[in-house]
């Protein structure tokens, strides 16, 4: 009985905070747009009894999903989000790996401080941090002023409102999610493995590729998923830093909801996005499980 109560807590949590909202969104995606409050029909009216319920279900259809296939804006937005997420994840890995490596190689008494520095940005609002990048990247921003005063460039670079700014924003925001799992993998590694590799004839560089890199593989995979999954649906960064030509599904979703007030289509976009994300989430879970098994 006590065990049941214990298991019930996370399940009720999941039911209330994930499944119920999902079912509501799913229901809206099957409805039709209407000039009403809320802006869709049908709505469930339990006072009508059994007949009302039958009527309610007969009015649900897949029209919105069919609509998504007729306008190529949507699949282009999905594809573009995917592309941006892949490139941004790769860039985050390129920046994050050396940082994680440096942290793991640092003397023991330095590590808590370095860890703190990685986590510290989380303590300020994400929105404020993204806004501050506008100040850095804009044409009159700090970066351009610095480069101009150093004489490296003669006219300001246009970075803000381009995909470059979006990449910078994503790499900056999600860097800790990449660093921490890689650092965890590297930190666990036994230092004598590298000495053994050297002893058996490896140079420092080959020892890295043959020992360190494969042993941090699980951390890399975990980090990539942790960056990739939220990046695909990212809305704030492309809308603040990106230009009108930055096409991401999160932005499309927002516009459908707030500009077009077309809740049913927006919900259909969200449901498809969720279904698409289930694939990498399952892959991520399997990677975590495999790692646990290998260690157990």
């Amino acid at each position, binding site marked *: 009985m006590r065990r049941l109560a214990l298991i019930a807590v996370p399940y009720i949590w999941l039911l209330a905070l994930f499944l119920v909202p999902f079912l509501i969104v799913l229901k809206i995606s099957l409805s039709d747009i209407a000039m009403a409050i809320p802006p869709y029909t049908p709505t469930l009216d339990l006072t009508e009894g059994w007949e009302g319920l039958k009527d309610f279900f007969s009015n649900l259809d897949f029209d919105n999903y069919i609509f998504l296939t007729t306008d190529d804006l949507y699949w282009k937005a999905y594809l573009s989000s995917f592309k941006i997420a892949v490139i941004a994840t790769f860039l985050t890995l390129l920046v994050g790996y050396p940082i994680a490596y440096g942290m793991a190689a640092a003397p023991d008494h330095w590590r808590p401080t370095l860890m703190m520095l990685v986590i510290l940005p989380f303590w300020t609002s994400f929105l404020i941090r993204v806004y501050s990048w506008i100040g850095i990247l804009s044409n009159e921003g700090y970066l351009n002023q610095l480069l101009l005063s150093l004489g490296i460039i003669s006219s300001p670079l246009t970075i803000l409102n381009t995909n470059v700014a979006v990449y910078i924003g994503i790499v900056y925001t999600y860097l800790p999610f990449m660093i921490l799992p890689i650092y965890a993998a590297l930190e666990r590694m*036994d230092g*004598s*493995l590298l*000495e*053994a*590799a*050297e*002893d*058996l*004839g*490896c*140079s420092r560089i*080959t020892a890295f590729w*043959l*020992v360190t890199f*494969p*042993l941090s*593989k699980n951390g890399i995979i975990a980090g990539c998923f942790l960056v990739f999954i939220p990046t695909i649906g990212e809305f704030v960064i492309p809308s603040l830093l990106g230009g009108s030509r930055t096409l991401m599904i999160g932005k499309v979703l927002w516009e459908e909801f707030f500009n077009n007030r077309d809740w049913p289509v927006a919900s259909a976009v969200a449901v498809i996005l969720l279904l698409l994300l289930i694939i990498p989430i399952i892959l991520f879970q399997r990677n975590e499980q495999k790692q646990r098994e*290998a260690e157990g």
Partner: protein
Amino acid sequence: MSQTVFEPWNDPQAKPLIQFKNVTKRFGDFTAIDNQTFDIYEREFFALLGPSGCGKTTMMRMLAGFEKVTEGKILLAGQDMAPIPPNKRAVNMMFQSYALFPHLSVWENIAFGLKRDKKPKDEITDRVAQMLKLTRLEKFAQRKPHQISGGQRQRVALARSLAKAPKLLLLDEPLGALDAKLRQDTQFELVDIQEKTGTTFVIVTHDQEEAMTVATRVAVMDDGKIMQADTPANIYERPNSVYVADFIGDVTIIEGRATKTGDGYDIAFAEGQPTLHAESSKTFQNGQSCHLAIRPEKVAITADKPDTRNALKGTILDIAYLGNLSTYHVRLETGQIVKAQTANTRRLSRRNFTWEDTVWLSWTDTAAVLLEG
């Protein structure tokens, strides 16, 4: 059939494989190795024995190339090793933690060093097969290190370090992670493999029994210095210092003053006690202070006064029963404790002596070792 004794260190013609020449190693202000000069010969099984922090691991890491020599030189086959990095040395090391690559199979672990040498494929296959056979690991070739037992891992580590046929193999506490029973079996296996391959082994250990079992010569280290490097028998029977006598095995040390008599010395150690006699080739001044080291198993314990020059009376303070042996701690009237050991050839119920019994301890003139004070 005569067997030649393997004692290259006594042969002035023999050329040493490893030469330490006035080697000093400092870490900041701390001197880990203090001006050491000694030789290791080919095919030797050389043990560095000492308590933790005595510098034995530093000695080994200098041979592997992981630590730089501060002063002096280490020569391998006459060549100065200082400029050669660890990955270019004909020296391989078996790590205390084994350091097996967890993402590679047993086979790939053993082949790792051979692949780095860019050896042809079939040569690698042959060599790995040979190593697997030597260490009886054929069945486990495709397993990952976490899928085999501790003893098997130890053999993989050995096979991997031997695969490149190094001139010198370094073993850092190779049996430290094994349980007592497995350790004993593995000790003999190690000697067997060393003889089969003809490789020179240098082993670091803090376990004296292990060092005595496997080594041709044992170097007892303390505080960055080799106190004595000799065969296990000589280390035990003819220690050159109180430190070595005390470090190896069980011993009673009696402090006294020597007076030359006949072939040896009479040692007066306490008022009211008879003088003891020990033969010694060392020279002592009359009245010079000295230490007499005597092993418990060389001390006989009797109820009546025996007819020997070395006989002391005392009462039994403690009995350590070890199953096959019993060690008696006997207190003399002066308060000095002398240990005596007897084999338990009879059942326990028929033991002759018990606590508080007054007994006589005796030993022969050649049993004890006289050491400088």
